[in-house]
């Protein structure tokens, strides 16, 4: 910003005044510097360093604005949140009255006198506590544990402390009313001992009353969503559970240093396990992706055994040698490293892989090398599974496995793949109708069993349908025959009277009773409904 600008802004005449000769000072004789300053100067020798003293200039005093200063006044005001009419005073900017000619109008005066209300009055909100009368109390709110007097006291406190339970509990000091002394008979015995109430007691009582009163004022069926959930929440308050929760919290709070440390390390461990779990699912996903690919390329049954896989590997190796690796990659969409890893895992057989993955969860350090060691080495480190775990992992023991180890997912698929392609298509259609994926998302043992059941049910269904179809066509045939015969008979009748009419009717009747429910549509519907319950179960499993 140049001085010109400043002048411009300040509305001073142009560059009338000569600029102050500031530079002259520097050219003048050097002042006698002392101390450090002199040392610094002398560093420059003959060419003195140009040190321009920085003069800190304070902000210019604000120009007095031409307007007169704003007027403020000590204004009295009221607060409508108060019950009395206390008048306090605060400084407010004086309202600038329009400079309209002031008439001697008396009526405008009282308007001015009206005292302003505090802007903070609107923040005065109170909680609404339930109110009940004697009648309502007697009919709906009686309790063995609480007298009406104490209940009143509780509600009073809740109102007073705005539902802040820690304070209500802290200040709770109920003194039962002293029974009238005039009876004079054993007054000591009558004085009820004051109970010490836990916060849960109080809450339970209050919520009960609040819920009951809510329902009285607005029956449950007419409640809005928010109201209803509040009502439900209050109604379902479980003091026992609350107490238990607090006890747990307290135990947790009181834990010693060692326990705290232990918890910390356990949490760390958990984190690690979860991280490993994530990695595992990631790997599993990759594996599935890989398994997915060949299915389009035709028969997979060949590779379902370990020997088959061995062959596949050999094949791939040879392909590898001749072709570039990239082609496989392109087909499977995997990085070469992953492909390699997947192959080695596949060669070691499905059973082994599962064990090693189990293994990884507990012993993090030994992951891959496990596969390369002999079965004995792996067996040594193998953890004995408990019965529970066996169930979870779907481990079953066999003396001999017919056909060697298999992927479970292959095994599940087998009943379908072994069928003819027409049949397969039919099964797939049913599955699609049931919204069950053909390839199970999570083929655990349980799901597998369910799926098998489902398949056999589907088979039954298909068989049923086949029978039904056959019967329908037979019926159609029979009706056609009958029609023809009738036509013939008509001709006969026309020719020779109505002898055979009754006979035909009987036959028709018999046909109907033989297959009353064999109408194709109804069969289909019923078996579908049976099926749907089964499939429901299996889909649920899958979601798990």
């Amino acid at each position: 910003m140049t001085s010109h600008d400043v002048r411009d802004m300040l509305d001073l005449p142009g560059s009338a005044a000569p600029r102050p000769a500031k530079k002259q000072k520097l050219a003048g004789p050097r002042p006698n510097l002392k101390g450090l300053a002199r040392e610094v100067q002398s560093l420059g020798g003959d060419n003195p360093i140009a040190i321009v003293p920085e003069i800190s200039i304070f902000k210019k005093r604000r120009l007095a604005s031409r307007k007169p200063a704003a007027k403020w006044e000590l204004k009295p005001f009221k607060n409508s949140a108060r019950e009395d009419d206390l008048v306090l005073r605060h400084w407010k900017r004086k309202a600038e009255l329009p400079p309209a000619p002031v008439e001697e109008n008396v009526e405008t005066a009282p308007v001015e006198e009206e005292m302003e209300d505090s802007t903070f009055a609107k923040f005065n909100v109170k909680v609404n506590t339930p109110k009940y009368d004697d009648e309502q109390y007697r009919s709906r709110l009686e309790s063995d544990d609480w007298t009406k007097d104490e209940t009143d006291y509780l509600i009073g406190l809740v109102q007073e402390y705005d539902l802040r339970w820690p304070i209500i509990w802290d200040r709770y000091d109920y003194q039962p009313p002293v029974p009238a002394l005039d009876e004079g008979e054993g007054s000591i015995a009558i004085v009820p001992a004051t109970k010490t109430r836990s916060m849960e007691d109080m809450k339970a009582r209050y919520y009960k009353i609040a819920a009951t009163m809510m329902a009285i004022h607005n029956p449950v069926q007419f409640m809005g969503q928010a109201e209803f959930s509040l009502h439900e929440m209050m109604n379902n308050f479980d003091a026992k559970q609350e107490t238990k929760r607090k006890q747990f919290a307290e135990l947790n709070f009181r834990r010693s240093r060692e326990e705290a440390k232990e918890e910390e390390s356990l949490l760390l461990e958990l984190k690690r396990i979860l991280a490993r779990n994530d990695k595992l699912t990631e790997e599993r996903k990759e594996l599935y992706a890989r398994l997915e690919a060949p299915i389009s390329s035709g028969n997979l049954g060949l590779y379902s055994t370990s020997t088959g896989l061995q062959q596949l590997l050999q094949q791939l190796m040879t392909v590898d040698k001749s072709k570039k690796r990239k082609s496989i990659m392109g087909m499977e969409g995997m990085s070469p490293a992953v492909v390699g890893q997947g192959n080695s895992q596949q060669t070691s057989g499905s059973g082994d892989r599962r064990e090693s993955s189990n293994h990884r969860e507990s012993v993090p350090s030994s992951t891959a090398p496990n596969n390369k060691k002999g079965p004995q080495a792996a067996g040594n480190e193998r953890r004995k599974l408990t019965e529970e775990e066996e169930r979870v992992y779907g481990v079953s023991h066999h003396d001999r496995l017919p056909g060697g180890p298999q992927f479970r997912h292959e095994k599940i698929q087998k009943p379908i793949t072994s069928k003819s392609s027409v049949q397969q298509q039919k099964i797939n259609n049913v599955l699609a109708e049931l919204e069950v994926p053909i390839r199970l998302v999570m083929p655990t043992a349980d799901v597998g069993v369910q799926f098998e059941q489902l398949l056999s049910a589907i088979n039954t269904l298909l068989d049923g349908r086949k029978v039904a179809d056959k019967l329908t066509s037979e019926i159609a045939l029979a009706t056609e025959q009958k029609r023809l015969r009738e036509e013939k008979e008509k001709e006969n009748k026309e020719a020779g009277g109505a002898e055979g009419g009754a006979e035909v009717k009987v036959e028709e009747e018999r046909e109907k009773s033989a297959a009353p429910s064999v109408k194709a549509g109804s069969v289909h519907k019923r078996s579908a409904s049976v099926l749907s319950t089964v499939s429901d179960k299996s889909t649920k499993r899958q979601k798990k």
Partner: protein
Amino acid sequence: MASQTMNSSMQPTDVYGGDEVSAIVLDPGYTSVRAGFAGEEVPKSFVSAHYGQIGDQLIFGDNEIHNYKPGMEIRNPMGKDGVVEDWDVATKLFEYSITSRLTRFPQSDPRSNGLNDDPKDADVEMDAVEEQEKTLEEHPLLMTETAWSTTKSREKSIEIAMENWGCPAFWLARNSVLAAFASGKATALVVDVGASNVSVISIHDGLILKKSIQKSPLAGNWLSSQLRSLFGSVEPKVDLVPHFMVRSKTPVDAGAPAQAIYREFKIPPTASFRALEEDRVLTEFKESVIQVWPGPGRLSSGTGPGSTNEDVARSQPGRVFEMPDGANQMWGLERFKVGEGMWDEKAALPVAGEIPPTKAQTIPEMIKASLGGVDMDLRPTLLQNVVVTGGTSLISGFNDRLNAELTVLYPGARIKIQAAGLTSERRFGSWIGGSILGSLGTFHQMWISKKEYDEFGANVVEKRCK
């Protein structure tokens, strides 16, 4: 820039919580009475709670009471537990602290402004006061009190505010709650280490939890008595000579006997005056020498075979303190020992004629007891909002030690200590909180008005100020 600074001619447009009604905040403590306008940062008026008395004449104010006057006894209207004992004098003292700096009342009258006080004018002055308009007719008054103040003393405060001073409105707030407010907390565990008392109180949503109130006398005054005991037990004994006794002094080497010329008095100063002046020296000593062992562990706890934290403390650089008479010496391990009793009752130095502190009076035990008296769900929150206030909490190492003790007590919990960095904010914590509260717009509806007082009587404080 310019648009952000508030222009005096503008009013804030958004909702801004403050709305000042020129209320006065009065925060009496054992050592001093703090008074000032609500909305300000520090109290404008800071007056020693001690007063001088010669015959019937009462002398207030630091300028006066620290000057030797023949026959002047020093007294304090506050009792040992920080609650007003002598209401007659306290009324005058409070009035002095308000009127000497804040309101216009006595300055206009040279006979009563305290500057020209002359014993023989005493009665005239009293009459003059009577005729004055009431002290606080235009100012609502917010007064603080301890968590354990009695109903009687509470009723007395409103009575004085309403009847003697003519306040239009009055409120009585707990000083621990206000200290929490000053730290910006409505829920907090307040550790107030003042002069007469240490108190540990849990506060929820701006209300004290009565079952959590813990107090003990192991505060500033107790530290002073520990110091006296220390001075008496070291070799050679340290002579505690207050400033007013010394006319001139010559520098001496550390440990050498003092060479000073003492003032002589025809009428010897009273014991209470001397004690007051000695206490000032002790406060200096506390401010500059004393250190709390910062932890981990206690001063006496071992760090290895045959060595304890004491050895570590001993190896730390000592501090030199020069007495008013010039005698000076280096304080090493001793400076750690004085404050140790606040944390470890076994480490307290024995004081003749005083009951040794009990375990329950130490700060860690008080915190434990205080937390034990509140709902479980609140405890973790409280530990995350530990507010430290009061003058004695300024001794160095206090917060570190508190933190160390708390982590030992509650290893699993998250602990956060809030202690104002500024000395003034720490010493005036409860006043500052009062200043905040008194200037809030939403507080207008809380005040007990004169009308309500007239209607319900003094007991209205019990109902309203909970």
